[in-house]
């Protein structure tokens, strides 16, 4: 039996790096990387970097306040573990959606994303209108 499905967590800002690596530990055997979920990164960013309260952060991510606290706790535990054990942190995974991935066309009102990062989107893929905006929730 599987539990209740998780709510989708909203991520406002995509992390600049895909992970972090310790240095100066050539003498120690390489350890397995540790996976920090996107939602954990986002919780840490909102609570510690942007200095929002946990209740405020939970509304941004679109989960309940207690869930946000659990995500935040898990993030801190993972980071502490990585620091102490000298492990690589990889930021990936989690049940998330990114805010800045979606665009909306003002002419035909469709939504679309842009999977190829190297090309900028300047027109609607459906009607070809250039009147497009970043989608804001």
């Amino acid at each position, binding site marked *: 039996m599987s539990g209740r499905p998780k709510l*989708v967590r909203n991520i406002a800002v995509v992390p600049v790096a895909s992970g972090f690596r310790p240095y100066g530990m050539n003498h120690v055997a390489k350890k397995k990387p540790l996976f920090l979920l996107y939602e954990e990164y986002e919780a840490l960013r909102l609570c510690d970097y942007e200095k929002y309260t946990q209740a405020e952060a939970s509304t941004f991510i679109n989960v309940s306040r207690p869930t946000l606290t659990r995500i935040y706790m898990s993030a801190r535990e993972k980071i502490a573990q990585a620091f102490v054990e000298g492990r690589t942190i990889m930021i990936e995974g989690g049940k998330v959606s990114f805010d800045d991935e979606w665009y909306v066309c003002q002419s035909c009102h*469709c*939504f*679309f994303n*842009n*999977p190829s990062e190297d090309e900028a989107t300047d027109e609607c*893929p*459906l*009607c070809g209108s250039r009147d497009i905006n970043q989608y804001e929730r």
Partner: protein
Amino acid sequence: MKVAITSMGNTLNSLLDKRFARCPYFAVYDTETQSVTFVSNPAEKIEEGAGPSAVNLINSLSIKRIISGEFGLKIKFLLTELKIQLVVVKNRDETVGNLVKLLNKKYNKTIKSI
């Protein structure tokens, strides 16, 4: 480039199916020839894992853009990896023919401008 539209039937008058993997047909629009072919979707009646098998079909037809009403959670990651663009149309009563008209207009323009 090929564009897939999720469709409830196999004519241009069919409505856009608002589900991606469970639609009975994909209308495949070719931007070069501006023609439409209908492909039936074998994943429609599968009980589980309809999403990934529909993605396989889409990928094997080398489609680069999908127009639908909604996409499941597992799908977005798969499609982003394959660099397939998602287009979400929220209007429930849109017909496949209407969307094809929009695409025709767009690609006629681009051809002329070149």
